[in-house]
């Protein structure tokens, strides 16, 4: 459920980005910065909550020790104050939000949409937030069935390449 709640702003943001495709590139880098800032802020809060909890227990144990020597009647074990608990929970959610914002765009689930994305967008459609092409992107995975690298006719390819070079030189010479 937590993930659902956190993911809903992402979906909104993503559809927003899709409606204005030109701005997507700029928004990608802004998004990375935003997600990093949010994650850092959340971590800071969490660290602060941990430190407060530690300080609180230290203080409690000292107080208990002095109380025991003075009155010899043990006070009831006190739990953490409610503000520290709230801070911990909220900071965890903020970190989660930052991390989810920073994930790469989701890939299409349906085969035909995914295949269409490969054909229509090429490698541009499979980049992470920084704009680098995914390592596992390979275009149409079935294109090897038509290019057949194990049966390559290297002599023909060599000849064609030499012709291409000659033609290119001729163009430059003109």
């Amino acid at each position, binding site marked *: 459920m937590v993930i659902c709640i956190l993911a809903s702003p992402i979906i909104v943001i993503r559809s927003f980005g899709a409606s204005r495709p030109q701005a997507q590139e700029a928004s990608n880098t802004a998004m990375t910065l935003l997600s990093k800032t949010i994650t850092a802020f959340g971590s800071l809060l969490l660290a602060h909550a941990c430190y407060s909890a530690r300080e609180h227990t230290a203080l409690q144990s000292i107080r208990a020790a002095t109380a025991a020597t003075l009155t010899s009647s043990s006070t009831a074990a006190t739990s953490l104050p409610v503000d520290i608990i709230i801070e911990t929970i909220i900071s965890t959610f903020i970190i989660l939000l930052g991390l989810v914002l920073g994930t790469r765009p989701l890939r299409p689930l349906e085969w035909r949409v995914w295949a*269409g994305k490969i054909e229509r967008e090429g490698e541009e459609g499979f980049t992470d937030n920084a704009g680098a092409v995914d390592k596992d992107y390979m275009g149409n995975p*079935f*294109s090897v*069935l*038509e290019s057949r690298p194990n*049966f390559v006719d*290297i*002599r023909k390819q060599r000849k064609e390449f030499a012709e291409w070079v000659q033609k290119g030189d001729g163009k430059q010479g003109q």
Partner: protein
Amino acid sequence: MAPPILHSPVQLSPAAALALSQQAPAFLRSSSSTVSSSPLSTLLSGPEKSEQWLQYENLIVSCLRTGDDQAAHQCLRRLVARFGDDNERVQALRGLVKEAEAQGNGALEEVLKEYNQILDENDTNIPIAKRRIALLRSMGRLSDAASALVQLLDFSPTDAEAWSELSDIYLSQGLYPQAIYAIEEVLVLAPNAWNIHARLGELQYMAATAPGVANGLYQKYMAEAVKRFARSVELCDDYLRGYYGLKLVSKRLLNDGAKATRQTDDSEFALPGTSTLERLNELATARLSEIVRHSAASDRGWRGYSEAEVAAARALLADDASAIER
């Protein structure tokens, strides 16, 4: 941008192949030249990356294509140092280098003899068997290549790439039914391959429009072609090749719709009705014009199509428009 070195370079354009093979010296410099299998050096140099060997393989092919034989030999030496002389893939690559450097038919016969020798020792060496078939085809001995390929497929019938090659060989000999059969075998092995569906549609169309085809056969081929192209666009949104074929086929069927005598009762190969064909044609026209429009404007998210394909689609649409004006 240079193409990634990890993908097979066979289908690249000459310019892209050149860019790739120009990366070779830098790549060779950046990776260490000696690989030893002793544990001490492995500890010192860190784990080896499996992609690296794929990159060497691809570099060999693209360097041979662009004529940079020196770099190809260097890559090959490193592969031999790592995997040994009698690794099957390395043997095939060495054969590839020899083929590329062979001058005249005598040298090619020598290479072929070597392949035969290797296959005599171990006739399940598939990379070498494939190289031998490719060499036979390259030397123009098509029927020898086809029979060798059939033999290979006899003991390795799940090799989709080999079936596809067989289909191509048959096609170059003009044997359409055989070519269609072979590409159907590929579809059995890779039923989701949208490009193979389109390829089958193209083969059916070629078979239908070949000279001297009987009317019944023509209808059967055309009906199959419609089905195949429709399947390819079903598997892949905005598939230019599929819509192009669909438009081509449906337009032709609509044009000779008047004189077509619907005598085939064979329900499996019955042509779709005129209204269905018209709707298919309209759909294909709409999708193709959208693709052409977006590609012409180079809109973001529409830059994956190759220019030649877009130009062909534009020509087909223009052809259609001029026919209407007339």
